[in-house]
């Protein structure tokens, strides 16, 4: 019982981190900007304004990051519903394989997103700014979903 609650909390935490990483425009921050996969916040005259991303971003990689973060969120949320459904329908002694598969897919996609972003964006600007909280949350979410999927593959229903 306790194990199940802990698993659910872990899964929900992973979902929350994924959503924060996807929605919040804070993968890269400098003193006056906070930018990421959807748009750029620019601080002008003590006011934050939302602007478009600069045109020198590699568009295909940017859209790949967008797509994979969204897909990771979707798979993780579906995985949560599948896990709850499997709690009631799975016969005793069987493993939660389908929930594990969904979590593993979410892990894969967020790993793809974070890797592409790390490798292709802001590679020459290390002195100007630093990675923001969305980026860090993306990598933490990768770890959480990985652990979660392993647990689902190993755990048996009592």
């Amino acid at each position, binding site marked *: 019982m306790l194990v199940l609650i802990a698993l659910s909390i872990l899964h929900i935490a992973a979902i929350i981190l994924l959503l924060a990483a996807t929605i919040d425009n804070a993968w890269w921050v400098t003193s006056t900007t906070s930018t990421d996969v959807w748009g750029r916040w620019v601080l002008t005259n003590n006011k934050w304004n939302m602007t*478009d991303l600069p045109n020198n971003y590699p568009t295909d990689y940017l859209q790949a990051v967008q797509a994979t973060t969204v897909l990771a969120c*979707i798979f993780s949320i579906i995985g949560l519903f599948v896990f709850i459904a499997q709690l009631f329908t799975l016969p005793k002694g069987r493993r939660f394989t389908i929930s594990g598969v969904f979590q593993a897919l979410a892990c894969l996609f967020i790993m793809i997103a974070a890797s592409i972003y790390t490798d292709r964006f802001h590679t020459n600007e290390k002195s100007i700014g630093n990675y923001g909280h969305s980026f860090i949350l993306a990598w933490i979410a990768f770890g959480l979903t990985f652990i979660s999927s392993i647990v689902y593959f190993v755990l048996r229903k009592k």
Partner: protein
Amino acid sequence: MLRVLALASVVLLGIAPQASQAITVYTSWERHALVGSDVRLSCSFFSWRFVSEDVSFTWRYRPDGSRDSVSIAHYAGGEPYTDNKGAFKDRVEFVGNPKRRDGSILIKNLDFSDNGTFTCDAKNPPDIVGRPSSVRLLVFETLPIQAGVITGAIIGVVLGLLVLIVVIYYLMRFLVARRVFSLSVSKHGKKKKEGSQQRQASFLLLLFFLFLLPLLQYPPPLLPPLPHMHPVCSDKRNRLARCHHHMTIWRDYNSIQRLLREFGMRKRVVKGNIHLLCMAAQLT
């Protein structure tokens, strides 16, 4: 109640003609274009009246940050007139078809100074009451990132694959279950169980014999194919009886008899035919 209804209908009929007389003009909300390219600004209208001869379109331009607007294109009395003095000299062309309620213009060779709001005003006498509609033009050096195409493609493909896998999985389960079900029914219903291969081979041979026999004796009749017929015959005397016994569906046997009789074969011939069919089935 009736009085209220009557009053409401009178009020509506009074208001409706006024409301329906207004002309509504449609343009895009915003247009993006590259420097140096051409852009087509579309404008159409909806009017309760037919397009009259005096239909008119007027295009005005208001630069960003300015409050005055200047007229750049006008269509009236069947003739288009375009700017021949201002910033849009020789760059504006009327490309719409007023008879089809289309009053679009084409602006060529865009520049950054063309950023602004273009207002289209259409009038269709006697339908002249209406509000003009505006379209905002944004001129870029390079087109901004269109957040959409690759993103949507990746998401769509992955989710589509997921749905496909789920559907195929449930389809396979359904088909396997149905096959198991049908096999179990056949086991209970029939006296002797035949393999499907054997069934098919015997069926083909039966068909062959059925067509061959009438050729020998009578003009060839047309017999429909006989499903589920695999009689098993063991010895000479009781062959027919046992054959009839082992025919899986009695209906087919009777129908064969009926059909053979229809084509003029006598009873003995019919029986003989079935006899041969049984032999043929045994050969497989």
